């Protein structure tokens, strides 16, 4: 579908990479500069990979793909990520 989901839809795949749940974190968009909780990111899951877009400007913040033995991650759309340490 081309309707999007919320950031928690990325949390599962990202849990393979990060030791901390980044959906609690606040990310700043490299395109528009807006800060949003990663939980608020617009997620598109059905494509060949997962894409998280800025809720303000739709710029790609995070991209993730998985093959049977590899995971690829691109976060160049996030200029910074602020995470609470529990």
């Amino acid at each position, binding site marked *: 579908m*081309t309707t999007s989901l919320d950031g928690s839809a990325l949390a599962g795949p990202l849990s393979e990479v990060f030791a901390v749940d980044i959906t609690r974190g606040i990310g700043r968009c490299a395109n528009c500069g807006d800060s949003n909780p990663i939980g608020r990111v617009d997620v*598109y899951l*059905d494509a060949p990979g997962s894409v998280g*877009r800025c809720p303000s400007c739709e710029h*790609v913040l995070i*991209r*993730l793909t998985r093959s049977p033995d*590899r995971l690829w991650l*691109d976060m160049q759309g996030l200029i910074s990520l602020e995470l609470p340490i529990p």
Partner: protein
Amino acid sequence: MPLVTPGFKGRGRSSDPKLPPGQYLVTDFPVLSAGPTQRVDTPDWEFQVKTETGKVTSWTWESFRALPAERFTTDLHCVTKWSKLGTHWEGVSLDNLLAGIETAAEFVLVRSYGGYTTNLPLADLLGGKAWIAYRYDDKDLPREHGGPARLLVPHLYLWKSAKWVRGLDLRTDDQPGFWESLGYHNYGDPWQEQRYWGD
């Protein structure tokens, strides 16, 4: 192998010889996208071909639709494993679109409204292998499937058939597109199951 879930069968999967390896047949037409459905109205639509020398040729919707077009039937293979056979389209062959454009370029970067890109050798767009398609199943191509116009290159995985296409950059060097730069195969031949880099 992951734990088998008792009694779980999943979707009907056929080992039909007409299907490339690892694919299953669908009868609906799944919509997959890396972003929101693009909304471009034909009065605003423009298609541009830029050669390696920087020369630009562009078409409006009117001039594009004035090009000779053809109706064709083809099979679609998506890297997410579904295949849809016998789909009916109408579009302009890239042979017609690119006729008269002088280039020594070997590679193409395809650009779409919304920022999506994909790359392939120029040779794979020619020789009756690719179209800019604007009608599907005898109706105007729906927005969710890439309307007003999409690229269609059926001999490669469907991620190469960029929806909401807006132009081609003809290049002497190969530039990986949106998925090719994130682990997907640079070429993407379904019959050789070239899904990921290194396949």
